[in-house]
């Protein structure tokens, strides 16, 4: 080859080091030369083609949908509804319930006093029980008491149904 190569120092540096068997210098010089060689980069669009192929083959999975699943939403709705119903019941019926408890206590005390006086006055046990039965029956058959009993029963039914839905969700989520 005719052209003058002597000014190509990196190549000459390397070859001189090889000639001297100076491995360290030869390594360093060759490293500089090799790093200057053109590297082969992938063609434009290579990365997206690989990702498309990976998705097609199911290797790269679509990430799970963020947000709440159906069963979770239903559970939260039921719990929320149950809590709201409970709070609403307590707010609306709380004062009423307190009054009823007070009345019941008052009724119990009066009843006890009546029983003691009756026994002291000579009434027999059967007569006493008949009187108590008539008094209790009369108080329960008023419209207000009947309505309250019905409401309490409805609240109980709603609570049982909510519990049933919660238990059903628990079964679904562990499948």
């Amino acid at each position, binding site marked *: 080859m005719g052209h003058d190569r002597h*000014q*190509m120092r990196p190549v000459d540096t*390397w070859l001189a080091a090889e000639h001297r068997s100076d491995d360290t210098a030869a390594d360093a010089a060759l490293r500089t030369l090799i790093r200057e060689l053109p*590297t082969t*980069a992938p063609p*434009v669009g290579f*990365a997206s083609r*690989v990702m498309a192929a990976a998705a097609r083959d199911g290797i790269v999975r679509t990430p799970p949908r963020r947000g709440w699943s159906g069963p979770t939403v239903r559970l939260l709705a039921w719990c929320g509804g149950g809590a709201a119903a409970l709070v609403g019941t307590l707010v609306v019926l709380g004062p009423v319930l307190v009054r009823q408890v007070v009345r019941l206590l008052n009724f119990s005390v009066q009843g006890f006093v009546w029983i003691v006086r009756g026994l002291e006055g000579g009434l027999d046990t059967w007569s006493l029980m008949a009187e108590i039965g008539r008094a209790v029956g009369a108080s329960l058959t008023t419209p207000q008491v009947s309505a309250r009993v019905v409401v309490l029963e409805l609240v109980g039914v709603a609570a049982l149904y909510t519990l049933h839905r919660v238990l059903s969700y628990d079964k679904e989520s562990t499948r």
Partner: protein
Amino acid sequence: MSDDRLVRDALAGQQDAYAGLLQRYERPVFNVIARLVHDPGVAEELAQETFLKAFRRLDTFDQRRGFSPWLLRIAHNTAIDALRRRGPQTLDIDAGPGGDARVVASSDPGPDRQTEHRLAVRDLVAALVRLRPEHRLALVLRFQEAQSYKQIAYVMGVSEGTAKSYVHRARGRLADEMRTAGWGGATNRPGSRSTE
């Protein structure tokens, strides 16, 4: 973000992590494969196959090895399997990167030195192509991809001593080829080393 973190995120299903690993390593993988097969179209196919294999086996990746050697090992094995299937090929001595593959330009030393540099690069690339595939790969891994001898041994599936021997022989052979091409001045004698 570290390779280990990207791998963990990818295994957790984050698509961005797969894309991150791909962007980080597409060039070295493609470079290693292209140095072995010399055909840019085949290199692209094999590089894609390498990444798909790596993504499928991501759960087997051992963090102690490092992601780069692990991935390059898959690339090496994929290319070698393809070469074995193709059988012996006639090499074009001027062959090198070409076709749709993009050649990334090196530094620009100035007009006269540019010509010298271009000639030197041409001769060096031609000499590299004439090396045996395992010697060529060892050289590229050592000097372009900055892998240690231990990592080169792992990538190529050989002992560390063999990896060192490949690099040493490749260097010697390359030097002979460059001297034959007229480089080296006073040391311009093929095989001219003081000791072997």
